Every structure is written in C-alpha cells, then in structure tokens.
C-alpha cells in the first residue's frame, strides 16, 4: 500500500514540460511564480558546422499567455504591447553551448548572452536571464505582490 502510494508520488514528482516553444519564467515577491508561454516563435535558426545563427527570432507579446486572463491583460499592458507588439532577438550567433544576440523589448535593445543545449538534430533549447528594468519596464506591483527583476527565458527552437 505504502509502496504503491510512493510509486504514484514518484511518478508525479518530476517537472514535466511540454512542447512550449518559449517560456518566460517570473518569480513573485514575496513568494510564488508564474510563466508566460507561447508556441508561436517566428524565425529560423540555421546550423552551419558547429555554429548556429539566426537573423531574427520573435514572438508577439499578446501571444504570451500566463494561465490567468486578468494576468494576461496586465502582462501585455506592462509590455506596452499596443505600441511595441513584438519581442525580438536579432543577430543570434551561438557555438559550443554559448551564444549572444540583441534582445529588443519595449523598443529598448540590449545585447544578451545565453546558454543552449542540443536536444536533437532539429531542436535547440536556449536559456537566458534578463532584467526587465534594463528594458525600461516599470516595476510590477499588483495588490502588493511584486515580480522580481530577473526573468528567465527558456526557448526551444527548430534548427534548419
């Protein structure tokens, strides 16, 4: 009986991720977290030898969903999506597990570094951490709960 329960628990005790192409992970203050996800990542990553490049990868801010409609509204408004509807990563160059590019959010561009790992011949998973304040995004506070000024972005992209 106990072993059955343990087995069920162990089966559930893993972080299960799904086919989301980009996930923006945010930490709440004082506690908690949420994610904004979309499967609509535009642009191509091209492999040439051991080098990966992309001219431009982008998502629409309004395509990012957090699981709560009201939070989506706040999220999109916070990114000023009516005026700046896209988040883009341009001039991407990556090799040996590390890469860089120019990230544009809220019409502010900054060079960013990221790490990546090869999932398969056709897929890469990249991880980058950014500070929203570096993109002139205001501090977030809703009913006294805030969002930390460090955001993790995980993206799985197809390779051509």
């Amino acid at each position, binding site marked *: *009986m*106990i072993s*059955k*329960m*343990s087995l*069920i*628990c162990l*089966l*559930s*005790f*893993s*972080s*299960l991720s*799904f086919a989301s192409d980009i996930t923006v*992970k945010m*930490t*709440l*203050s*004082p*506690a*908690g*977290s*949420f*994610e904004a996800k979309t499967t609509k990542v535009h642009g191509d990553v091209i492999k040439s030898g051991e080098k990966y490049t992309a001219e431009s990868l982008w998502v629409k801010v309004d395509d990012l969903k957090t*699981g*709560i*409609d*009201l*939070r989506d*509204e706040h999220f999109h408004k916070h990114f000023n999506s009516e005026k700046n509807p896209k988040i883009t990563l341009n001039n991407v160059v990556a090799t040996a597990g590390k890469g860089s590019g120019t990230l544009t959010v809220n019409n502010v561009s900054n060079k960013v570094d990221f790490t990546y790992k090869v999932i398969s011949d056709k897929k890469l998973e990249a991880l980058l951490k950014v500070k929203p304040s570096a993109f002139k995004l205001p501090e977030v506070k*809703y*009913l*006294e*709960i805030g969002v930390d000024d460090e955001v993790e972005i995980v993206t799985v992209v197809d390779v051509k």
Partner: protein
Amino acid sequence: MNKTLYIYFLIIIPLFSGKAYAYPHFIGHGYNSCITCHYNPFGNGPINDYGRSVSGTAIAGRDFYDENKPEELIANETAFFLKDYISKSLKPFIGYRGMFYKSNLGQDGSKVEFINMQLDGNLVAKFGSKDQYIMSGTFGYAPIPRSLKNTPAGDAMKEYRSREHYLGIRPSPNWGVYFGLMDKPFGIRVAEHTSYSRISTQLTMDDQAHGALLHYSGTSLELGLNAFIGNLASKSDVQTKGFAGTFEQTVFEKNRIGASILSQKNTYLKSTALAIHTRSQITYGTSVLFELGQVNKTPVNGTTPRKENYALLQNHIKTKRGLYFLNSMEYFKNSLDNSYKVRFGPGLQYYPFSKLELRADVYNTRNFSRDSNSADRWDLLMQLHAWF
C-alpha cells in the same frame, strides 16, 4: 502534458484515491507558498487582496457571468462585500462553512446531519511604512467537536471563540515573526481536519496554541519554527506545550519537498511527530500532494505508549476554470493492536463564482484488524463554503 500522463491523472488516480481539497494544492497554479495569498504565512484564515483577486479570476469559474464581463471587474468584486478595496490598512473578512453529511450509506445506521462548521469574522490591520506590522483577529462560531461532546473537555469549550489572533512583524519580505494564537506549522496543512495526518498529529480545527512563530520565505526555501504554550483560553490541564518546525525546498522548479517535527505535551499525553512531504505541480492548475508521518504517543500516566503511522496522497485536477476533481488516499496504522485503516474516495470541487465553494466527497473507509472484521463504510459529504 502527454496524453498518457493526462489519462493517468484524470482517470486512474481518481479510481484509487479518496478525499481531497485543500489550498496547498494551489502550487498547481504556481503558488508554492501560502503567504502570497494569505496573511498567515502558513495559510488558513483570511486571504489578502491578492488572494481574493486570484480566487476570483483564476480559481473560480465564470459560468454565471456575462461573457463580456471584464476580468478586472471580477477582481474588484472579490473585495469585502464588493467594496473596491476601501481601506489599505483594515481588511475585514467573513467566512462560513456548512456541511451536509450522510453517514454509512446504504446501511441501517445511516444518519443525515447538517453541520455548521464555522462562521468567523476577521479583521486584519496592517501598518508601518511597508506594511511590516500586521494584526489579525478571528472570532466566531466553532462547534464543539463531536468526539468531545458530553466530556469534561467538551463542556469546558465555548461555541463562540477565537481560533486565531496574532501580531506579526515582517522586517523584510523574507523574514517574519508572529506572536499569538495560531495553528502549528507541520506537514501539509490540508483543509480536511478529519484526515489522519491531522488527527494523529493532533493538529485539527481546535488545536491552535499561543506561541511565537518564526517564518522565512526565500526564493526556493521556506521554513517555520514555532514554540507554543497551549491555548490559554482552554483549561490548564489540556494546554499543550512544545515546539513545531517545518521546511520546504523547491526542487525541479515545480515541486517542493519538506520535512516537519512536532513535540508537544499536556497533563495526559506526550507526543512526538515526524513527517516528510512533497507537493508538485503536474500541469497548470493540477497538483499532487504526498505526506508520510509517524507519531509516538506516550501517556503520562504510564500506560502503554503507541506508535501511529499515516500516509496521505491527494491530487487536485483542474478540468476547467472553477471545476476540480479532488481525490485522496489515506492510510493509518496504530501499533497498539496493529489495526490499520484505509480511506479513499473521489471528490468534486466547484467554485461557480468568486466567494463560493461547493464540494462533494464520497469516502470509503476500511478497517483492518486481526481481531475483528468490519464492513466497508461509505460516507457522503457535501460542503458549502462562502466568504465575503
């Protein structure tokens, strides 16, 4: 989530599990700590403005709203009696729980009851430049537990009393210290006060104690330490003194593992409890909780000590906004006679709109003993929970 796992959690687990429902499940919505939505860092009691908004716009459904009703308006309506957060410093709260209970389904001794379980009024006052000071007081109707009726302990209890009042200071968002009457931090604080994890550990609906609580909440670590001297409103011989501690660590992003210890003593009994637990988000809105514990109880009068073991597995499956399957499976073993119990059964939890929770559970309980056989017991519980 892949299809196999989805089927597993949607169909297979409900077949094997029983009761559940509880707010620790909201790790499934990304809320791994109670303090995001509750004033008390370990949950229970009134929810804060953010918790009210989440309850209305993420937890509760919108089946009864016009499809064009803005979410912002729904969020505003979650405030006390529809008032749009009228005061920054004073936060009133009223909560009610009532239960329709039909025991021993299909048996001659079947009984039907309606129990008013709770009617509380609460006021939270926050002050300081960063709201670092908090006072919370709850007072209301709390029925005498059935097990204590017509006993000296039950006769000494009042039906109108406070189950929680405290003063809290949070010098930083991470640290807080609280003084007053509070629940003891231990294990997973599930809502069901009849679960073995709460009965065996003596942490049910009337087991709060006066004391001091230290709380830490970091990015991935949360802990609480509590020293207590018993509920000073109760008779001195049943005032339970001791300490409790619990911690949780986030692992693999959406899972938390934890361990707890509790040592307490009154005039009649000394007990020590240890537990480990996990809480995991499976998909958004869906979670699984697991707790395994052992309680050693030593009567002060010198009679035979006993060891109790329990296990609790609960899941919370979001089917759509506002509607959840709730299931749990419980195990309890008593070393005195080596008897053990298994309880399971599916439940349904529905939040049709903000401030209302409806829940129905069917519990199957089996008692296993070397000395006697007993038939399966089936009970039906239907609960109404409203708050303002």
